[in-house]
């Protein structure tokens, strides 16, 4: 790992990460602001009337507490799809574009092994995702405490978000591995990003109809159980750890692919 290269990549990707944080924070504040136990009841009534529509966006649970309300309206959509888009952008800036435009030649002309370069790429992406998660969690906790002191299960939310990091690692690993393994930029981002999007859509479809429930079990995203993590269920913790481990394995596969492949830069 090279601290100098990681620093350079953090600077290059910080503006996009910051922009995504602003959008996520906006939604987090909005959702917390909208929390109202009586409103939650009416939302629950709507959810009961249109369960498929809500379930399609990962909003499947009757949310009577602030914690459930945040999880219901953030975790399923905002904190899954927006990070996926950010991951695709960061992997593009870090791996795909330099390889395609030729600036990767400058890095390969340095006395740094390919493994060290690729590990630095991965480290920068993971660090920025970790920073985004910490900032998001702090925002959620801060605005919840400001608006509804004592209502939030802080430890539960932290557990749910820590598990969410497993899901982010999995998505980042998949996109990174495909970017390192495939040469044309379309395939480089499309295979990993497309797989993650397909998993997400499968999960959406599974929530819509009973007959499609099997689809939900087939996607790795099903391993993330936010409510189980809040409740401290062991199965949910194992699921999150499995996602993180799969993410780490995909990053390792990406590093190995980068070390071996031809780079015509």
């Amino acid at each position, binding site marked *: 790992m090279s601290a100098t290269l990681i620093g350079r990549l953090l600077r290059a990707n910080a503006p996009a990460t910051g922009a995504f944080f602003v959008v996520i924070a906006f939604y987090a504040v909005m959702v917390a602001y909208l929390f109202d136990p009586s409103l939650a009841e009416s939302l629950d009534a709507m959810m009961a009337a249109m369960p498929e529509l809500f379930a399609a966006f990962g909003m499947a649970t009757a949310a009577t507490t602030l914690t459930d309300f945040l999880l219901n309206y953030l975790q399923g959509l905002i904190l899954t799809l927006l990070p996926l888009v950010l991951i695709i952008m960061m992997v593009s800036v870090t791996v795909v574009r330099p390889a395609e435009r030729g*600036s990767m*030649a400058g890095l*390969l*002309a*340095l*006395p740094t092994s390919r493994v060290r370069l690729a590990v630095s790429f991965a480290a920068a992406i993971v660090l920025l995702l970790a920073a985004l998660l910490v900032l998001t969690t702090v925002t959620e906790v801060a605005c919840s405490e400001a608006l509804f002191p004592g209502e939030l299960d802080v430890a539960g939310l932290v557990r749910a978000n820590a598990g969410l990091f497993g899901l982010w690692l999995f998505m980042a690993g998949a996109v990174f591995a495909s970017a390192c393994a495939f040469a044309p930029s379309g395939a480089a981002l499309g295979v990993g990003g497309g797989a993650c999007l397909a998993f997400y859509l499968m999960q959406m479809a599974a929530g819509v109809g009973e007959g499609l429930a099997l689809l939900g079990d087939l996607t790795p995203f099903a391993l993330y159980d936010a409510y189980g993590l809040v409740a401290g269920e062991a199965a949910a913790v194992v699921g999150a750890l499995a996602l993180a481990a799969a993410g780490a394995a995909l990053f390792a596969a990406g590093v190995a692919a980068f070390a071996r492949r031809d780079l015509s830069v």
Partner: protein
Amino acid sequence: MSALPAVIEARGLTKDYGRGRGVFDVTFAVARGEAVGFLGANGAGKTVTMRALMGFIRPGAGSVSIEGRRCFADRARIQETLGYLPGELALPEDMTAKRYLAFVARMRGADEAQLRRMRALADFFELDVRTRIGRMSKGTKQKVGIVAAFAHAPRVLLLDEPTSGLDLLMQQRFVELVRAEKRRGATILLSSHLLGEVERTCDRALFVRGGRLVSEEPAASLTLEETLAHLYGAGNVGRSWDAPGAACASGDASAPAPDAPDAPGAACASRRASASASDTFDAPGDVRTSGEGRAS
């Protein structure tokens, strides 16, 4: 080829990209302290060879080594003492030259002497390091690439069309720099399609055509006609533009001039016959003619 031990070596290097693209069975060696030109037309295989030497791509067959190390497997070690200027230079556009060069220096673990040399090179090429790379002209970006490639006083230099984009004065300064590096003892492989550049900096020239090494000549004895024949094949040299249906100049081709030879169009033919190869080969940035440019 020199009898001295090889620093840069390709043995049967083959990288086949299909449809005749790539390099095929390329074998050459560059001895320590030697400067060798690698001349070829566009698409002849110069850059593929450079990429193989840089360890960017694996040879499909054969081997490439620098200072006895395998270029792909030992790339990181080789780069410690190697300076590289890519043919199609791409730099991070969001950085200033100063920040980029500082980044390169840190990645190389540069000492104070190397930083001084970096500053001296930037001064020599009149590079304003405060400018963002994205706002630089091609020539100015090339200067950044040159400073980055030479700053650590490398023992081996791989230069792929290094004067691309430089103005005449900076081309001259680059030639001076390469000569100074050669005097310092650096081993240089300079890929180019400019005869003058090779004549002024190199001991000998390797000619590559269609991905194959076709000839090797002392740089001092290169003539434009021979060079063209090596680069493009004898059959492709000396052709001139003949617009379909037009006379050799303006006017009606069917109307014979008062002093025209017997056959219509013969004036064009005779003019074509007298045209030398140099009339049709305009080497961009080639300051001197082949005669003037001979290495002294």
